[in-house]
């Protein structure tokens, strides 16, 4: 048995890079340091069927085909669609994402990632009011006040608390006892159980509570006994803790990006953090889900100028979330051909979007059998990034780390599959000119 060290976990946006993989006969048989979800991903304990050959739907059945045939078909769908959509991207590495943006330009497609259905509201908010963040190490070394709002890291980001809150830092050498942990969540959760203060607010009242906290911070009094179900005195107490922080951090998740108010909640949350800097040092970090959802937003921004929902139909990048988002295009029945890569909209998109996906040709670049591949006309299985191939990923707050290759699958990486499709699309476009 061989031990491979410093492996980067291809599961969540915490992007732990201290995993040790136990490898036997070119297979990962065990891990150290990984959380249970990361571990099961490494050892394929998910039970999902793995594809190893390209497939195409013929007479209603997915049948094995050659790589060339699958690439040809995928390229033809993209090149011949009037309004192609290329969606996903959050579970692959940055080189693949970069080829993806070029392919979108060439195919005059809309390119969009899973931010569209998770932290899209956060992106809109940071474009409204800004983005004061820090890296994880700053939290570990300095933070004395830590807030998790609308998220349950114990489940979705299992090592997040141990790395950032329980961990001992330079100026917080006792770790957890040196910090005040505040969890804001309408539910009791495994994370809220660990908190010093759990603000169990009413559902869909994040905006009201944030606004009340800002008002208090700016010197106003609360005229009601409670706001969002939280007693006035409790709000005063929490604002006091926040504004006396030496170094405070707000982690926020889908519970606030997708409750009523959406990006307006995040606007207010960011402005609360900005206001707090009058008296304290305060920063924030969005709890991004997929391990490289952040990387796509980075790559797409440096190549096109916009982070997601980018429409290349005129050749010039256009950005208008609400019109150029994946669900907009699907639910409005605008898109007539779709490529899905490194994500599973078949399992997560609303019914109306799925109905459109069922009507149009769908390409899936996806290692496993998923609800999306069940709807696909072409399935091309790639090597899994972080286990079977390497490449860059960006941690939720933007630290780039190189994912390692641990075993050999013999499959093409996403970037290579995309390059081949790109070459073919160029040929088709040139021939039709």
């Amino acid at each position, binding site marked *: 048995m061989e031990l491979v060290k410093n492996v980067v976990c291809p599961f969540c946006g915490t992007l732990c890079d201290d995993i040790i993989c136990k490898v036997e006969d070119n297979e990962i048989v065990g891990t150290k340091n990984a959380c249970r979800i990361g571990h099961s991903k490494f050892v394929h304990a998910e039970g999902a069927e793995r594809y190893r050959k390209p497939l195409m739907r013929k007479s209603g059945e997915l049948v094995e085909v050659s790589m060339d045939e699958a690439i040809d078909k995928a390229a033809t769908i993209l090149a011949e669609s009037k309004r192609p959509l290329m969606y996903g991207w959050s579970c692959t590495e940055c080189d693949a994402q970069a080829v993806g943006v070029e392919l979108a330009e060439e195919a005059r497609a809309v390119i969009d990632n899973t931010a569209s259905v998770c932290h899209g509201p956060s992106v809109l908010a940071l474009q409204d009011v*800004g983005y*004061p963040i820090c890296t994880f190490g700053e939290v570990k070394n300095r933070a004395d006040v830590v807030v998790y709002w609308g998220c349950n890291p114990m489940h979705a980001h299992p090592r997040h608390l141990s790395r950032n809150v329980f961990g001992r830092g330079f100026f917080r050498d006792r770790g957890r006892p040196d910090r005040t942990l505040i969890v804001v969540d309408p539910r009791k959760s495994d994370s809220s159980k660990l908190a010093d203060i759990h603000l169990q607010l009413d559902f869909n009242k994040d905006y009201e509570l944030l606004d009340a906290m800002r008002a208090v911070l700016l010197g106003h009094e609360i005229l009601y006994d409670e706001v969002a179900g939280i007693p006035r005195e409790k709000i005063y107490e929490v604002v006091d803790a926040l504004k006396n922080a030496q170094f405070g951090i707000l982690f926020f998740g889908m519970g606030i990006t997708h409750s009523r108010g959406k990006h307006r909640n995040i606007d207010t949350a960011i402005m609360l953090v*900005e206001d707090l800097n009058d008296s304290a040092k305060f920063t924030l970090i969005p709890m991004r889900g997929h391990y490289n959802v952040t990387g796509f937003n980075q790559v797409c921004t440096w190549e096109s100028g916009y982070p997601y929902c980018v429409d290349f139909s005129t050749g*010039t990048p256009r950005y208008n979330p609400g019109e150029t988002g994946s669900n907009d295009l699907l639910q409005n029945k605008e898109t007539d051909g779709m490529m899905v890569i490194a994500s599973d909209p078949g399992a997560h998109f609303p019914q109306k979007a799925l109905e459109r996906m069922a009507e149009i040709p769908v390409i899936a670049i996806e290692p496993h059998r998923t609800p999306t591949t069940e709807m696909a006309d072409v399935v091309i299985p790639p090597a899994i990034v972080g286990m079977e191939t390497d490449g860059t990923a960006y941690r939720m707050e933007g*630290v780039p780390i190189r994912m390692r290759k641990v075993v050999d699958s013999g499959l093409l990486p996403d970037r290579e599959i995309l390059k081949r499709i790109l070459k073919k699309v160029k040929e088709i476009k040139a021939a039709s000119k």
Partner: protein
Amino acid sequence: MEHIIKNGIVYDPLNEVNGEQMDICIKDGKIVDSVSEDANVTDASGQIIMPGGVDPHTHIAGAKVNVGRMIRPEDSKKDAESLAGIKRAGSGFSVPSTFMTGYRYAKMGYTTAMEAAMPPLLARHTHEEFVDTPIIDHAAYPLFGNNWFVMDYLKEGDLDKCAAYVSWLLKSTKGYTIKIVNPAGTEAWAWGGNVHGINDPAPYFDVTGADIIKGLAEVNEMLGLPHPIHLHCNDLGHPGNYETTLASFDIPKGIKVNPKHGSREAVLYATHVQFHSYGGTNWRDFVSEAPKIADYVNKNDHIVIDVGQVTLDETTTMTADGPMEYDLHTLNGLKWANCDVELETGSGVVPFLYSPRAPVPSAQWGVGLELFLLVNDPGKICLTTDSPNAGPFTRYPRVMAWLMSNRYRTDMIENKIHKWAQRKTSIATLDREYSLYEIAQISRSTPAKVLGLSDTKGHLGVGADADISIFNFNPETQDPSADYMAVEEALSNASYVFKDGEIVVKDGAVVNIGIHGRTYWVNSLYDAELEKQVEAEVEKVFKQYYSVNFANYPVQDEYLPRSNPVNGVME
């Protein structure tokens, strides 16, 4: 592949060629004495020939640059380009996307541009963007001025260990120089504070800006680096900061210059000095102290500066000076991005409108031009806008035209901008006009020399890289002073640009991407044994206080498609 460029009027200051008509021969990407009959001929009759432009300080790649793009879709919306032939699509006026950055530099005849602020922990990001930046050669400057290891070693007085650490970090990040930004101040900002002046210590670490500048200036020469320390002084943008600036300039004076590559004479490179030349105590009684700063530069030979000229545009400010950006946000109320980076540095991004109708931007415009016009020797001053901080790099041709034409400046002062330009600065009294030779100095030879790259960059002598710009402006029949719009137009759209001997721009349009740009980085080995020892110390600290593993920290070779190490000391 051979080329000959015939009959152009050549400005090549490093070889003291001042407007002479001569032919330039190119073979295999280099400038040579002669070529065969078969060489491709480019006719440059009646046109200006200069070496490719060299930008010693710009912000084009990396984390804060991309945040600047991401938080400002409005900046992208007003300036977008379509996919066209070999050219990729893109967008961004003040912060163009990576492909557009390469094209736009090339279009102006610039072939080298240096990213001036790279947080070591995020170095991989900068290099990833370089991979997607076509045509131009480049390097990145890692930030050292608020680094915990540096501050600790300097506090202990252990310059040797500090040098070994700096040497290791330059290699690990594939960085080019020692960049210092608001020394001690950004560490203070991690607690929400700042320092004032050079004698105010960083909290806990208890070293001052002065200690850091002094220590790193010595380390720079111990390592024999090609470029001197690259300093962004304390107190940026504050009225009255010129005293801090002059005191900072004096710190490395007397240190012996020791480059192992190149032929620089300076031990200090001070950047965007325009932002550091202010008198008064607040924005009401503010006055320009650029004349005092220029006087210092005129009297001292250990320093080279760049200006950071305000171009009077709407732009995006971005810097590792975290507290400064927060102050700017509280001043203008616009959106604020920030990123504090563990154990190393910080950064901030805020949009800014330098309105020509507003008093302060107009005065800042005057301060920058005063520096250009009052520093006598163009061998000591470089053209920059600290892009995009004082304005986007795409305005360089306009700045050049302002420098060459008193009429252009007078028109601005009299008709276009706020009266504070003349009231708060001496700009209206200065009638000096730059020659084309001097323009070639501040945009080509001076930056190439102070970067330590003048063996191959910034000149047109035999052995230089064949990076050449040709502009359709005839100095024998046209006068830049009178015909300033024509010279601005010509400099904006080169008629030809050669990069590594290939034509990449023709008639102001990118026609060829050529080979990928070089990534320059410094390879030094101060003391192998000590470097090992320091590395072990660093690894221990990593385990406890960093959020990435030591083994995953150095930038892998995969990120440098055309790696070009430049040696410092090699034991």
